[in-house]
């Protein structure tokens, strides 16, 4: 029960959350801002944070696939299935949300230069209608991601405070070895 994820995976998990929160907060601010130098800076930071999520994803998946934790232990069958489905969907959205943002930026004709130093290729040519289409999909996927993150966090808290089964501690090292 006290087994936990290895620290690189734990680190990437919480780093991803931090980056998503940063990207989400900035993204929501951008919606209501009029153009200003600050807005251009926030656009850049939004894209940089989001692209970082995307860049870390392969490493995260690799680490995750080499874990030997028994996820179904102590769960009912539907619970095991539901958690596997939510985890799968979360990984898929960690891919789709930044990818759709990148597609939108490419189509809008505003390339991404990661942290101002690494120019990323445009995924599609400049096309206003396409940019609008990807914008809708980016927004939609973000909403789905946020909903699932909330569900995911609620489940973790349920494990910790109702089931007392140490599931949360796998991802929170400082909770381990506590009664």
């Amino acid at each position, binding site marked *: 029960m006290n087994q936990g994820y290895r620290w690189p995976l734990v680190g990437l998990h919480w780093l991803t959350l931090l980056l998503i929160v940063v990207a989400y907060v900035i993204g929501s601010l951008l919606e209501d801002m*009029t*153009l*200003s*130098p*600050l807005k*251009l*800076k926030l*656009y*850049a930071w939004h894209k940089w944070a989001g692209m970082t999520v995307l860049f870390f994803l392969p490493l995260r998946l690799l680490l995750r696939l080499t874990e030997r934790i028994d996820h179904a232990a102590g769960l009912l069958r539907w619970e095991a299935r539901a958690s596997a489905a939510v985890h799968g969907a979360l990984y898929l959205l960690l891919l789709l949300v930044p990818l759709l943002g990148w597609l939108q930026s490419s189509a*809008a*004709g*505003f*390339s*991404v*230069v990661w942290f*101002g*130093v690494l120019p990323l290729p445009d995924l599609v040519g*400049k096309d206003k209608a396409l940019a609008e289409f990807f914008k809708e999909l980016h927004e939609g996927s973000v909403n789905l991601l946020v909903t699932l993150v909330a569900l995911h966090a609620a489940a973790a808290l349920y494990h910790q405070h109702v089931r007392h089964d140490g599931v949360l501690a796998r991802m929170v090292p400082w909770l381990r070895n506590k009664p």
Partner: protein
Amino acid sequence: MKTLFVLLMCLAPPVWAQDWKLDAGKSQVQFVIKQMNVSTEGGFRRFIVHASFDPAKPEAGRFRVDVDTASADTGSAEGDDEVKRPAWFDSKAHPWAIFSAKNVRREADGRYTAFGDLAIKGQSHALAAPFTLTRQGNAWLARGRFPLKRSAYGIGGGDWTDVVADDLEVRFNLVLLP
């Protein structure tokens, strides 16, 4: 009658000087700026060209390009609105950016440099614009690019200096019909 004819001949422009018409649909005046280190292309939707030259001897010709500063296409509607404001082009007070070539120098076959003045936002500076002139059917294509500094014309100062680079490039593709 004869005197009148001679008088008219004197008033008319020299016979070699054709006035060329711009094929606006095939022509572009563009700029490449850098914001947050990202190169971004834009352009102008409306510009007028006055050109009169002999394709065999463009050095002796006259060229003038008037660009409607309110017609900038920055890639986003809010950008288009922004650059009309006083901090940028101040399009209400300065609707036109004008390049008029004073003379043209032949550099090589089909390659020329136009020397003249570029006036934007009430300020005028000397400019040398290299260009190539190539035949396209019965039209001629004048194509070139030159660097420019926003600060030289007071375009987009203030806080914008942090996020939009001072240096930019202007590109032009002008298809001229006889």
